[in-house]
């Protein structure tokens, strides 16, 4: 359902990713691991259509990504950024309900902001993520972990075919992180709709092998390994982080290169 062919991305002179070939099948739960700057966020951003590849192509459901309109794209892929990117002035509820934007008309969006009507699905998702007591709080007043859960809830309400998550549990305490990952990867039965296909970038190799079916190791923008989680061994992970040490020194030489997104 998602295919990358010879896809690469270069920001100015900084080479971020690829060229890589990748095929993702409906229903897969994929963990992407690698150190900072390995290209994890760039890979997710390419699949989301937020950036276009410098070379190569990205296809969704057999169609080139640029040909898919915003509304339709939102039903196929949804993306949670590392920075959550919520609207701080709005309440948590309004941010979560925004996940409906692709289905809602302009009028419905306006009504949701001005009138005291509540989207039941959004309430249910929020309750499941332990946010029910914070729904009416201003988002800027929530803690980092709570904001991360608001962003996750927004994505669950959006309910796309492919769910892209950039460091989905980075701001959560360990026990909560486990619980959320179980929900995201469909390991527990839940009353809310769980993501169908998941691609998540993670710092922790342990989480990736424990919760995901397939693990992709990235280093310096290239795929080092792409295996079923059960087959990932210590040597794979070691190769990843040794390579990344070299990569780290190389990045330092490029420190003056323009970093368009300034993240990752």
């Amino acid at each position, binding site marked *: 359902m998602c295919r990358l062919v010879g896809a690469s991305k270069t920001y100015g002179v900084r080479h971020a990713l690829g060229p890589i070939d990748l095929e993702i099948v409906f229903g897969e739960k994929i963990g992407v691991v690698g150190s900072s700057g390995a290209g994890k966020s760039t890979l997710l951003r390419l699949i989301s259509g937020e950036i276009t590849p410098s070379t190569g192509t990205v296809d969704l459901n057999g169609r080139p990504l640029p040909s898919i309109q915003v*509304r339709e794209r939102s039903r196929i892929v949804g993306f949670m950024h590392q920075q959550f*990117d919520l609207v701080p002035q709005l309440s948590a509820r309004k941010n979560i309900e925004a996940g409906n934007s692709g289905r809602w008309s*302009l009028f419905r969006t306006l009504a949701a902001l001005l009138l005291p009507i509540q989207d039941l699905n959004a309430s249910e998702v929020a309750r499941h993520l332990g946010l029910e007591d914070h729904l009416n709080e*201003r988002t800027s007043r929530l803690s980092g972990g709570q904001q991360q859960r608001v962003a996750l809830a927004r994505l669950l309400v959006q309910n796309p075919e492919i769910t892209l998550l950039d460091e989905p549990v980075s701001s959560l305490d360990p026990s909560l992180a486990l619980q959320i990952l179980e929900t995201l990867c469909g390991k527990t039965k839940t009353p809310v709709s769980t993501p169908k296909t998941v691609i998540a970038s993670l710092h922790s190799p342990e989480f990736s092998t424990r919760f995901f079916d397939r693990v992709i190791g990235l280093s310096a923008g290239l795929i080092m390994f792409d295996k079923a989680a059960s087959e990932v061994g210590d040597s794979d992970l070691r190769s990843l982080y040794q390579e990344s040490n070299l990569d780290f020194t190389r990045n330092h030489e490029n420190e003056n290169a323009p970093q368009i997104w300034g993240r990752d």
Partner: protein
Amino acid sequence: MGTRLVMITGVLDSITKRHWVFLVFVAVAVSVSTVDWTNTTHAGAGRSIWMFVNALLTPDISSTTLNAAVHAAWITVAYAAASISIAIIVGIPLGLIASGTVLSSGVSSTSLTISVRAFLGFIRSIHELIWALLLVASFGLSPVVGVLAIAVPYSGIIGRVFAERLQDVPSQQLTAFESTGASSLQQVIAVRIPSALPNMTSYLFYRFECAIRTAAVLSFVGLGGIGFRIQIALSDLKFETVATLMYTLVILILAIDLFCGFIRKRMIA
């Protein structure tokens, strides 16, 4: 060409902080020496200042003066409120268009955006007092003219500031919203306007404050209100009454400032 550019940047680089301080000093010295300082005082200046300071310490608090002051203040506030209301009604929609966030891209909408920006720029670059003179010349002295004289340039200012606030939303928030399937109009409603609103509200209160001061000044043109009273009292040399009126103005501005702070706190909470 290339070497010349290098030379220019080289010269700019060699100007140190000390040079800049020296340049600023020279600029200030030149401008101060340009002002004609010879006729700053007249014979009775010292006495006038003394009388005025004395009046400030002993303002006229007779009931007639206080009544007149409150009434005049009320008229001034009414002028300012009417002006700012018109300016908001006109300025906010124009600002929405001028921000270029609402209309889809296209030749006709781009030209509309540019012409609205130009219009806002034109009406705000002319000062309230000049608008008052122009409008009085064409329509004669009337309260409506006073209100319009403030409302016209303020529409331009409010429109421009609102447009800027709408544009200044972090692009990541918009990208995230777009990925949920939100059209650019939905983004305006759900991201841009909520982001701009708290800031804009407190700015509008500040503008209301400015409108009160301007209304007070405009009443010198003969539109009634507190400025008009001050002018009459001054020409009658009733400094104690002038002091009362000025204190009224100060209290008015402070009250609005307090009210604005209260509203802002509620909006942030």
